[in-house]
């Protein structure tokens, strides 16, 4: 399956391009910055450390659609990067740690839905939140920082498969602008 994935036309075209991988990585960082940035605002509210003058439900309405949109962008670009070197990433320890942390983040979210969220009507407007909400929020911050660290380490431990020497790379930025080679 992994072998098939990294032989697909999409994976090959990203591998052979000078730009695709750096651009995918950049979009991935923009996406994860928005995911973590928006989640942190909600987690700090649940911990009672910021925005305590606003109801949690209003914060969720303001934030979570952007979190999910950014997450979709991050998952898409992550999947495309994975496809370029699927076998190496799949066997990379830090890739596996990152995937495990993402599962933990989902479980953590589910725990919130099943516990504190059920009684939210009672504590929504006030500055103090139930212990379950605080634990979930603290865990969320730790897990997402872990995702960022593991993700960064993947870049240092999994090397890109080298582009075959005979493959013609894309024209660089200068060629695109039609500037003469100096």
């Amino acid at each position, binding site marked *: 399956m992994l072998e098939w994935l990294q032989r697909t036309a999409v994976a090959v075209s990203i591998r052979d391009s*000078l730009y695709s991988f750096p651009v995918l990585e950049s979009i991935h960082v*923009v996406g994860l*910055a928005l995911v973590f940035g*928006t989640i942190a*605002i909600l987690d700090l509210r649940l911990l009672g450390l*910021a925005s305590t003058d606003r109801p949690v439900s209003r914060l969720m309405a303001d*934030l979570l659609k952007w979190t999910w949109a950014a997450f979709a962008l991050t998952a898409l670009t992550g999947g495309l990067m994975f496809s370029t070197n699927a076998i190496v990433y799949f066997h990379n320890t830090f890739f596996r740690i990152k995937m495990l942390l993402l599962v933990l983040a989902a479980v953590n979210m589910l725990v919130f839905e099943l516990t504190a969220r059920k009684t939210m009507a009672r504590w929504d407007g006030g500055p103090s939140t139930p212990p379950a909400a605080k634990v979930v929020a603290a865990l969320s911050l730790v897990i997402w920082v872990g995702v960022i660290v593991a993700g*960064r380490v993947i870049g240092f431990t999994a090397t890109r498969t080298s582009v075959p020497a005979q493959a013609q790379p894309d024209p660089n*930025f200068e060629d695109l602008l039609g500037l003469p080679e100096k």
Partner: protein
Amino acid sequence: MNQFALWLASTPPSVFIQEHNAWAVPAIQSVHIVGIALIMGSVLMIDLRILGLAWTDRTLQQTTNRFGPWLTGSLWVLLATGLLMVVGEPVRELVSFSFWLKMALVALGALVAVSFQRALRRHDQQWERTVAQGSSLKLLAVVTFFVWIGVIFLGRLIAYDHVWGSWSPAKRL
């Protein structure tokens, strides 16, 4: 600049980071990413407030008071970790087109953030009814958001400076 980068690479702090690069570089970069994430969250919220898409139950002043300190605080964290990265890998950073274009965009983004917070504090109530409703501030909000996205792109492109062709000074080394 090449000479300076080579000199910097020979100094003890740089040598220390180079010798411990297996953990030091990813650790510094991770803190750097957390910092830019906090900036993106804060900029997104202030910009959405200007566009009337979030925090509509709070004034622009209140929203900026909530996120402004996080924005400037994160900028200092980014400056500190960024400086460590320059010290740790001087040639990779300083001899790169992406790095200098990124610095220009960071200066622009920081200037907008600081002068916006100052102007808002000065004009307060009156602004809230006039300028804050205007389309030029809305345009500024959108442009600023893309300036920070540009900063992230260029930050990542430091590792791929060859995409700039002969604009990359690394090519001439």
